[in-house]
């Protein structure tokens, strides 16, 4: 799985960070950082959930 964020869409709502903090981090500069571009399989469910819950649908997963 590869995590791709469309940073033109991303509004840093940080929902993804709440669901999968191992993969997504919104830092104090208010930008989203991807910590694991290829997350471990044990994280895939969480990452899918994060992608789905993004209010801007800014997270795409290449599986």
């Amino acid at each position, binding site marked *: 799985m590869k995590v791709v964020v469309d940073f033109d869409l991303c*509004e*840093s*709502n*940080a*929902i993804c*960070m*709440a669901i999968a903090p191992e993969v997504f981090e*919104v*830092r*104090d500069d*208010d930008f989203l950082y991807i910590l694991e571009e290829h997350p471990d399989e044990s994280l895939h469910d969480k990452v899918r959930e994060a992608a*789905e*819950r993004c*209010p801007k*649908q800014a997270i795409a997963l290449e599986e």
Partner: protein
Amino acid sequence: MATSGGGDGGRILIIGASLAGMNAAQMLRRSGYQGTVTVVGEEHHRPYDRPPLSKEFLTGDLDLERIVLAPARRVDELDIELLLGRRATALDLDRSEVTTRSTGDDPGSRQQQLGYDGLIIATGSRARALPDAVIEGRAVALEGLFSLRNLGDAQRLKTSLSSGSEPVVICGAGFIGGEVAASARTLGREVILVEAADAPLTRVLDAEAGMVMADLHRRNGVDVRLSTTVEVVRHDGTRVVGVALSDGSEITTSVIVVGIGAIPNTEWLQDSGVSTDDGVAVDPWCRADTMVMAAGDVARFPNARFGGMTMRIEQWDNAVEMGRFAAAGLLADLGLLDSDATVSSGYAPVPWFWSDQYDCKIQLAGVRSDEAVMARGSVHDHQFVRLYHNGDTLCGVLAWNRPRQAIIGRQLIEQGSSVADARERLGG
């Protein structure tokens, strides 16, 4: 009159095809439900996301296709029967049947009874209108008098904002009013923002924080008038020509946007036996009756996390979460869920919403109280974290241009954090 029941696997009927309804439908499939899933939606468009309507949709060139809801893109794959352009008009609990009526002109499909094994009510809310008495002379439907709830509203408003030079008058400095004001300014329009209370957002924020929003709009050139109401809407019989305000001013305008709250869509449930009082009353498992759930803007539920306070939450995130919860809960009640662990403790969310105005992101996790303390920054620098608490207990986190802290704050409320711990964690 056609009657339609479910197939062999039964049928779950969802009334309302917006965020809560579509997420409920998706959750049914994800939980392995094999029967028919039917979603009834009043609008003709494919189900779409509403937050952009007051923002990018007005200022940019977003079309419907870009804002179609994710589950609505997958209706074939999810095997969801989507009945659009139909409105529910009555519920018969004894017969487990909903009467629906076509909103179009096709006489052949005007009325249809839909049977169900389980029902999810997700009919949402609609914009509250100005009282008729405010409209000069006899109340008529007027061009130029807008509320903003659906795509049609947004399309018409967008057209109106794109031409003309007189000020746009916005009635109500809540989130819709504030976002439309920001969008109209972005489009170069003059804006007069009229608010009856002595600060914006008094329903969700304390007055000091609400005044930060007033300041934000004033710095962006909006004429913000607090403690002021619209007294008379002037018109020529078909369109708005002006407005008289309680401060004595007369304003020439062809555009008035009304954002003074929302009313849950429960009229169709009158006499059904389902209890309604500012929303469908549900228990902590989203149940309104046997095998009948409600979710989203339309549902009022007791939230155990906040001492059982009943809440009706008109927020994006709640529509998603409650739609999913109601779907799982219904399957558990139908005996179709392997494990009911996800629903056992009831629905007790920490509410969360965001609003984008100009370059400012405002987020509130939890609820406000009368006790507020700053954890970080100050109200003057437009980047701060403010905590609401009841005694020692943290109940709300307001993050102004601090999205990271909003989400951490939400988790702290979930964990039952003390306000002292929260100041430590969120300070800086």
